[in-house]
């Protein structure tokens, strides 16, 4: 065990956890004031449900011994993390429990990301049900495909087989362009279709109620994302350093590229555009941060920032109400970052693979494309099925009256903002006197 590595991964796990409340702010600021609490509660709810499932059987399903074909780990092999708590239980140079904790946060935020597609209209209970089902049937297997590497002994023999994308296809996905972003993006598209459009969309444009909250969220996401990407080195080493700097610079260029598209197309560089560009850049560099140089990261950030800025308009053309652009940012950004590895990978980076632009031919490119498309199709089809299952059993959507008056009040019996109001005046508390006065007024009317 290495104490430096362990300290860094523990820290990274806490950083990644913070991304989910950060996402709650990012998404919450973008919805209307009458549904900000419901939006935030979908993130908090994902933390609750997925955290528990991860410890019970999720970790085993993702990282347990392969059941065959690299498709799934044995879900009950380490049920409740049994057998992983001793000093001898190591994952590389860190205690297995530290790795379990780090990966738990990935499972949580992937589920939370989906919720942006169904803003303003989802019921909370059915969302929790969907979150648990989706984590179990979609995320845990896909995490196994992508993140579970074969464990080999000193002679190179495989002692514990992992997932097919990581070990057979050999697609590069360092921190989850496929497993997290394409996965959540495709599920978001499916749920936007299952739940349908909001009342009045797209005729009534529903503008964000608090851009400062969006910026706060984007800041927390960027901060936490250093744990996501540099923490995925699972060590305090060179790979962590390279991925950290790539995560920084790709995000910078993606933000600038998004703003440039807005300035040219709409006339103004917007705050929402900057915050969205930040997230698009973070999404794109997630799979690619270990395999490109900082110059490659600049290119990937710029391409993806511009691409996503254009992609968020697709929903109007195709008529699906992906309310907060989970498709335009996470699916498109994830596809972009994953596939651009095939062009920009450089053997100067830790992954030591050359892409098309660095003389490596198309070998890595097709592997990236196959991995990306496989995850997208698996997630979309199963998310559609799970979404309809929830819809036709317990119902997924709030009724129209609740949606129009505000899903916060209908689902949570709360409203987000109280501006002054009339409470606390001299008459407060004199209930009987007030009641008496109104009785006199009523009497005078008759």
């Amino acid at each position, binding site marked *: 065990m290495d104490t430096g590595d362990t300290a860094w991964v523990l820290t990274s796990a806490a950083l990644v956890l913070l991304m989910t409340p950060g996402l709650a702010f990012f998404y919450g600021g973008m919805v209307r004031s009458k549904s900000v609490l419901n939006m935030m509660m979908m993130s908090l709810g994902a933390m609750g449900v997925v955290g528990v499932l991860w410890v019970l059987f999720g970790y085993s399903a993702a990282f347990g011994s392969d059941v065959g074909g690299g498709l799934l780990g044995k879900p009950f092999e380490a049920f409740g993390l049994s057998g992983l708590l001793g000093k001898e239980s190591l994952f590389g140079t860190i205690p297995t429990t530290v790795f379990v904790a780090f990966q738990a946060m990935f499972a949580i935020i992937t589920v939370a990301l989906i919720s942006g597609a169904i803003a303003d209209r989802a019921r909370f209970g059915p969302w929790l049900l969907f979150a648990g089902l989706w984590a179990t049937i979609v995320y845990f297997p896909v995490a196994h495909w992508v993140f579970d590497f074969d464990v080999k002994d000193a002679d190179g023999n495989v002692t514990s087989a992992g997932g097919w994308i990581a070990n057979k296809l050999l697609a590069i996905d360092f921190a989850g362009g496929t497993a997290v972003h394409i996965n959540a993006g495709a599920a978001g598209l499916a749920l936007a279709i299952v739940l349908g459009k909001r009342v009045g969309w797209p005729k009534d444009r529903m503008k964000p109620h608090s851009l400062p909250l969006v910026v706060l969220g984007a800041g927390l996401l960027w901060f936490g994302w250093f744990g996501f990407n540099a923490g995925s080195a699972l060590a305090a080493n060179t790979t962590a350093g390279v991925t950290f700097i790539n995560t920084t610079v790709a995000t910078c260029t993606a933000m600038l590229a998004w703003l440039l598209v*807005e300035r040219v197309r709409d006339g103004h560089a917007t705050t929402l555009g900057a915050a*969205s560009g930040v997230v698009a850049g973070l999404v794109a560099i997630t799979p690619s941060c270990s395999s490109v140089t900082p110059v490659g990261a600049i290119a990937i950030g710029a391409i993806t920032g511009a691409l996503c*800025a254009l992609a968020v308009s697709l929903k109007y053309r195709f008529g699906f109400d992906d309310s907060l652009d989970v498709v335009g940012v996470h699916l498109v950004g994830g596809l972009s970052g994953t596939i651009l590895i095939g062009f920009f990978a450089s053997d100067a980076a830790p992954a030591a693979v050359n892409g098309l632009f660095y003389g490596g031919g198309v070998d890595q490119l097709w592997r990236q494309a196959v991995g990306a498309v496989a995850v997208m199709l698996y997630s979309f089809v199963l998310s559609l099925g799970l979404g309809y299952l929830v819809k036709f059993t317990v119902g997924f959507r709030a009724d129209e009256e609740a949606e129009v008056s505000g899903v916060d009040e209908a689902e949570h019996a709360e409203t987000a903002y109280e501006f002054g109001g009339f409470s606390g005046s001299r008459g407060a508390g004199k209930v009987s006197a007030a009641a008496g006065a109104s009785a006199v007024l009523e009497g005078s009317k008759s």
Partner: protein
Amino acid sequence: MKLVTAIIKPFTLDDVKASLEQLGVLGMTVSEVQGYGRQKGHTEVYRGAEYAVDFVPKLRIEVLIDDAAVEKVLDAVVEAARTGKIGDGKVWVTPVETVIRVRTGERGSDAL
């Protein structure tokens, strides 16, 4: 007595208030309101989608004055609130039957 109601651009409030004070007007009520006239609304863009904002933020000022002060007050408000561009607002006058100061019970002009 008269009630003068003015809808003005928010940034002209300080000028309007200062010129009313110069005339000896001792109070006013200000509310934040939204509306549209010939100026119509404006357009905002979020993630590339245009949003028509129909109602423009304005301030509504209400002052109670003596009949004799009406013309001077109107001139002062109009001059202070005018920028010469569309959307400067409107001012109108309505007759007031009576006014009572809550603290003392004074009525009419004494309550102004």
